[in-house]
């Protein structure tokens, strides 16, 4: 579920980016993006996407570039990417149906979760992810949900000091 969430965050707009780069003739950039998707799709066992990404990368690196072949490869890539993104979105929606469906923010619970997350975040301990995810759920619908999401994203990016600062701001807001 965490990988699916990350995949959506990173490549949710990749099809649009491929189209734009194709129109602008940015072939090296297309190859770079396809390379990234190829590597990442391995973690999701999305072999068909990895194959189309490889084909797109090769088409974009060809010298000279065959524009028709590139367009075909881009179309196949975008189609497969759309499938994987839909599946990832379903997975994320299913995984979030627990705490995320809370009708109201539970500030008391959020306070203890934030306090529990703080040392984990500071230590770079991966257990922080689960605690922060639950914290986001506990604050669902409140103005502090975004702050908790920002802390989670910063931790995901391994920016521990920023995540700590955001969490401190959240703890302050929960007082």
């Amino acid at each position: 579920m965490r990988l699916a969430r990350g995949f959506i965050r990173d490549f949710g707009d990749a099809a649009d980016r491929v189209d734009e780069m194709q129109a602008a003739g940015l072939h090296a950039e297309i190859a770079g993006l396809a390379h990234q998707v190829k590597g990442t799709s391995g973690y999701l066992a999305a072999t068909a996407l990895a194959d189309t990404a490889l084909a797109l990368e090769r088409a974009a690196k060809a010298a000279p570039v065959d524009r028709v072949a590139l367009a075909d490869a881009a179309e196949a890539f975008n189609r497969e990417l759309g499938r994987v993104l839909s599946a990832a979105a379903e997975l994320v929606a299913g995984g979030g149906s627990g705490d995320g469906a809370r009708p109201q923010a539970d500030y008391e619970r959020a306070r203890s979760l934030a306090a529990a997350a703080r040392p984990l975040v500071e230590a770079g301990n991966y257990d922080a992810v689960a605690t922060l995810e639950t914290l986001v759920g506990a604050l669902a619908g409140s103005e502090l949900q975004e702050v908790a999401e920002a802390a989670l994203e910063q931790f995901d990016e391994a920016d521990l000091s920023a995540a700590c600062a955001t969490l401190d701001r959240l703890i302050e807001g929960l007082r």
Partner: protein
Amino acid sequence: MTPIPARQTVLVVDDDRFTRTALAELVHDECNVLLAGDATTALWHARSSERIDLILLDVEMPGENGYEVLRQLRNDERTADIPVVFITGATDEADEERGLLLGAVDYVFKPIRPAIVQARIRNHLRMIAQRRDLEQLAQRDGLTEIYNRRYFDQALELACRSTSRTGEPLSLSLIDIDHFKAYNDTYGHGAGDDVLRTVAQTVAQSARRPYDVAARYGGEEFALLLPGPIELDPLLQRLRMEIAALEIEHTGSPVLGVVTVSIGGAVAAGPVTPSELLARADGMLYEAKRAGRNRTISSDVRYRYGTDGLPDPSVDGLT
């Protein structure tokens, strides 16, 4: 003595979030996972964390690369033995050879194949745990299960080097069970072994800080190595009284009728060799025995006299 945590700790170092998360997801059900996105954070984790069992290290990172991180890990005695698995997108044979020659235990290519990588990490962690178990066994005394003489000698050597370099105080105490031969003669060797185990565990309870060492020095003699500032005389007095308070009958002892110990302690704060410190502690132990046993005598002069310069009556073992 710090207990060994049952869960192993894996440090995942990769500047790519997706790879970092994927690797963490592979192992976090079975291990504690720490994350780092760059070389500086990785080295900070390795040096400051209580224990890291395995590092999964990306080769290509902005700033210092994985090879440089590994070199720095190997040059620091705190981190030199941490096994490292390289994770890399570079499939060049020369790169792989370079990593393995630098001391990496394995080399994994990106994009990773999750099931294969998970199995390889498990194998490494299993071997690491077995190696650690063997090291533990080699360091422990078979009868009392506290550290053995071999481990103590190494710890004393390192501690003396440290205090010689830093001037931080270092205390060494030798603890001898009074009239232990008579105990064995009276109650048999099986009962004698029980006494050794009980006394050893009581001595070990005085070694509470991470670098404190309680060891069986030999026969019925134990050693307590306490680096850093500590109120040695009160601690040794307490230990002596705790052992007497066990009230283990010892009719063969003319001291109290129960098992007692004599303790000699020495404190160094500056250049000292292991043999010098041992000789000083041994000299104090000899004095404690000569003065009638069941007492502590140490060279920790801070607590032997009050601020008025007169002997402090609350401290026993003064001669």
